[in-house]
């Protein structure tokens, strides 16, 4: 699960990691209070930062929510300095409008939260990232002197500028490794010592929070040699939520697709795509394979939907509801490989679901496994708008036919 910068910084602060401090607001009315509370902490210059789940905010463009062609302001993050009113004007242009960055896609994301933070004077911007290296099944810490820019670009163009340290899971990050990173970044004196402390605390935070990605870009060296996280990007491992009961509360539902949230309520794993053929499949791998098959059949997948192993009448019915809420869907392909589950039972479930809701598009149902022949007969005799298929090939052909009949 992705969380916002301000949430990530709050998590890191709990571990003693020095972060650029600030206050999050969701309406312009809260702005003055936020600035005052910073003033009380001795902070007198500000940065206003849009909080969305995407990078490249600083270079993004803010469009009007009402008119998607009207540019309201350039940049979703700005150093304001001491001028409180200037900051307020800028903040009011962000809130409620759409920020488009290279990571959001053209549709962009609505800015609903701002982080009003201290403006720091610094001499160096560095990069730090912690994540799993899948090739060795160990966590890796990556550091680079090229902070503040896209790290993917650095990795591609100048890979020698990225220093990597792999952490032994049995003993954790060792001091010599922390030093190795510090020396590699060319740090010395106070900054070096501060960095070693910083990375040690940061790795601890990564482990204890069960993060799957922790990125500080940039981490800055201030003019007085402090090491501070200017930005923080944290992705938490949903599977570990059983030991972090408070983390699900960090989820920002505004960042999620509404249909996907709805599907999650039914325990369905649904991802909306841009195509015209909806699909409902048991198992993630087969679901992806089915999406590919739809493309090969001349359609394009409208979604990814894994209904899980059992495919009961309820899950199928809920699946129909979710798929049909997407108005671009012109046909549906149900692909269930009945292993231990019997296909005739699944067929009855599909029929029951199809009777309960109005399905305005052709539905190709491909059931394979135990009792597949009986299942096909049940579907054929149902009198409903269900087209039975047996093999994957057959299913693809029937999807293709359905599409051309619709067009």
């Amino acid at each position, binding site marked *: 699960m992705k969380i916002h910068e301000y949430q990530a910084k709050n998590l890191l602060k709990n571990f003693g990691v020095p972060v650029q401090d600030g206050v999050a607001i969701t309406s312009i009315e809260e702005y003055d209070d936020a600035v005052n509370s910073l003033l009380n902490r001795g902070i007198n210059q500000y940065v206003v930062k849009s909080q969305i789940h995407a990078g490249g905010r600083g270079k993004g463009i803010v469009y009007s929510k009402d008119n998607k062609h009207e540019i309201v302001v350039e940049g979703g993050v700005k150093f304001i300095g001491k001028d409180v009113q200037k900051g307020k004007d800028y903040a009011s242009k962000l809130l409620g409008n759409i920020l488009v960055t290279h990571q959001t896609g053209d549709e962009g994301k609505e800015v609903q939260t701002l982080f009003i933070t201290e403006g720091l004077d610094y001499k160096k911007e560095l990069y730090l990232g912690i994540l799993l290296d899948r090739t060795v099944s160990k966590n890796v810490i990556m550091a680079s002197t090229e902070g503040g820019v896209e790290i993917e670009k650095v990795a591609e163009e100048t890979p020698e500028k990225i220093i990597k340290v792999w952490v032994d899971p049995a003993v954790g990050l060792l001091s010599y490794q922390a030093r190795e990173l510090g020396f590699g970044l060319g740090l010395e004196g106070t900054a070096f010592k501060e960095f070693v402390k910083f990375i040690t605390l940061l790795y601890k935070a990564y482990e204890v929070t069960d993060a799957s990605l922790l990125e500080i870009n940039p981490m800055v060296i201030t003019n007085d040699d402090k090491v501070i996280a200017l930005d923080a990007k944290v992705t938490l491992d949903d*599977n570990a939520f059983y030991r972090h009961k408070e983390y699900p509360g960090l989820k920002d539902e505004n960042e999620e697709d509404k249909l996907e949230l709805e599907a999650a309520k039914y325990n369905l794993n649904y991802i909306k795509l841009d195509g015209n053929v909806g699909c409902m499949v048991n198992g993630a791998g087969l679901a*992806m394979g089915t999406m590919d098959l739809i493309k090969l059949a001349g359609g394009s997948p409208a979604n990814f939907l894994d209904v899980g192993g059992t495919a009961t009448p309820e899950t199928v019915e809920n699946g129909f509801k979710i798929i049909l809420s997407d108005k671009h869907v012109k046909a549906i392909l149900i692909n269930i490989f009945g292993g231990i589950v019997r296909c005739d039972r699944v067929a009855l479930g599909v029929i029951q679901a199809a009777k309960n809701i109005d399905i305005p598009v052709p539905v190709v149902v491909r059931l394979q496994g135990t009792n597949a022949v009986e299942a096909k007969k049940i579907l054929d005799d149902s009198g409903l708008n269900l087209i039975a298929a047996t093999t994957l090939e057959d299913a693809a052909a029937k999807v293709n036919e359905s599409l051309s009949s619709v067009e």
Partner: protein
Amino acid sequence: MSILVNKKTKVVVQGITGSEGTFHATQMIEYGTNVVAGVTPGKGGTSFKPEKGKAVPVYNSVKEAVQKTGADASVIFVPASFAADAIMEAADAGINVIVCITEGIPTNDMIKVYEFVKNKNTATHSVRFIGPNCPGIITPGECKIGIMPGFIHKKGKVGVISRSGTLTYEAVWQLTNLGIGQSTCIGIGGDPVIGTRFLDAIKLFNEDKNTEAIVMIGEIGGSAEEEAAYFIKKHVKKPVIGFIAGKTAPPGRRMGHAGAIISGGKGTADEKIKVMKECGVLIAESPADIGRTVEKALKKIKAGKSKKGDVKKSVLKKIKKIKKSVSAKKNDVKGKIEKKKASKKTVKKKNKK
């Protein structure tokens, strides 16, 4: 022959008294798997009674189960919050093949488990861990350890490795319907950290004399398919057939499996397919074509083997013909016969080439 498990394998089921464990232990026993023990801490001394077959003793620990029954393989059905511990317990108890079916184990736990299990391997003891979040392993007709439907499999000579569950069943079913049996099928799971990778399984299948061809079914995310492909190019002479799911998957989205995600432009299906093709892997472009691609590859092997035989036959035929004509035209001009004999020689020469 097969890899890792066969009819001699003695299986202990960890979490046998839970609903998943009970259901699948029963299924495994019905398939003919030699389930010798169950483990549920606190329920030691009781026994698990399947509908058919004899009762299975339940122990408090894997160590005890191994001591009492000689179990050498384990399958884990315990909840995610206890699964990491269960895997390490099995490894510590001396189990050789550990299969973890459980889904949703935190990645940071798996990193520790991976290292722990790896370090249990010594010169005299080997531990192979499969999963987690996987359907398991089956040697058709001999031993099923996991949740896959047994009946779709058929004994034979094609090894199957896959990151997915139902997509594997699909591929196996296509093979079986074409009359192509499998030596062993392994579902390695779709998580970011897994015990057995494509590379490990490919190595085992490559060394197995009974496996004639290998099917690998991958998906987006990570670079395990590429890693295996480079090995295949260098070391594997058997045909390898591949399919990668997720050509149409968008970047940055987790497609069900925790490991199935294209991040930073890496791990796309196109990239994997490109590398696999370069390394000589035969790619099925559609999931509907996996079986047929294997069939074609097997026919090619057969044709390669029998080609020489066919040539021999045709040469013999020609020689027979020549002999006939020679005897028929016994009284023909000598020169004519000489000519025929010469042609016989050229045929033989061709054959040698």
